């Protein structure tokens, strides 16, 4: 990584940290307790497009561990891990297919983020009735993903110009 990229990486980790903190402060009345909207996903998305798959995955794990240790509980960490890792892998694979733009990749990330959390919830409370909330969470994930994707597209465009990275296309 160039020094510019390394600096960006550090900045993104800090941003992800702040996003997660804000998210932990504002409880969103999602039907399953402990669930998060996944706003910090925007940072992972940007890392994926500006820096690369490995960096995005590293950032994803680093963020969850840092946030979990700082202001999370064991439960929130399990949720974040399930949602965060699944969505990160899904986004990496989805970008590789080149079928979707950054917005599509972000939507896949949002949806899989919620699927991961729902699976964690089913395993933790050992109750399959939770799957009942799947449709609501799919739509929530798609909407969150759409908004994050559109915002992420703008930011990525600017960052790419600033960093003089030519080998990544955002659309």
């Amino acid at each position, binding site marked *: 990584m160039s020094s510019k990229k390394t600096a960006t990486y550090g900045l993104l980790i800090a941003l992800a940290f702040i996003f997660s903190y804000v998210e932990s402060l504002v409880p969103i009345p999602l039907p399953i*307790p402990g669930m998060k909207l996944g706003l910090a996903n925007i940072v992972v998305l940007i890392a994926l497009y500006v820096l690369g798959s490995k960096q995005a995955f590293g950032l994803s794990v680093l963020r969850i561990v840092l946030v979990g240790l700082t202001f999370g509980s064991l439960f929130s960490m399990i949720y974040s891990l399930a949602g965060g890792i699944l969505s990160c892998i899904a986004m990496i694979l989805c970008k590789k297919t080149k079928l*979707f733009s950054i917005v599509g990749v972000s939507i896949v990330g949002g949806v899989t983020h919620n699927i991961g959390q729902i699976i964690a919830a089913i395993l933790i409370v050992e109750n399959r*009735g939770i799957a009942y909330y799947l449709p609501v969470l799919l739509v929530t994930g798609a909407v969150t993903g759409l908004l994050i994707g559109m915002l992420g597209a703008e930011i990525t465009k600017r960052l790419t110009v600033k960093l003089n990275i030519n080998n990544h296309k955002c659309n």
Partner: protein
Amino acid sequence: MKRNDIILIIAILVFAFGTIVFFNLTKSEGDKVVITIDGKPYKTLDLNTDTTLNIEGEDGEYNLLVIENGVASMKDASCPDLICVHQSDIHFDNETIVCLPNKVVVEIESSESNEIDGIVN
């Protein structure tokens, strides 16, 4: 955005909508309130009998469950997030209130659903 992005959004919406329709068509009023702690059965109550139950855990944690006018809701709890208290009333078959910190699950069940599985009323 690419054309595939739009297709993706439509596919997710259609799938979610289809699931909602399916759940609603197969949805029926429940009549039992099944309470479990950490996956183990705690108590089963009748949804049509007004009652208040303090669900007590091993380490002093509690959830106050109220059944009134055919709906169940969590009125108070010892958990730090109180998300279970903010969840809406439940009365349909398979609806749940979950308190994750206390590992308490309150689920509505129907005594009929096991016998006539899949039949829509």
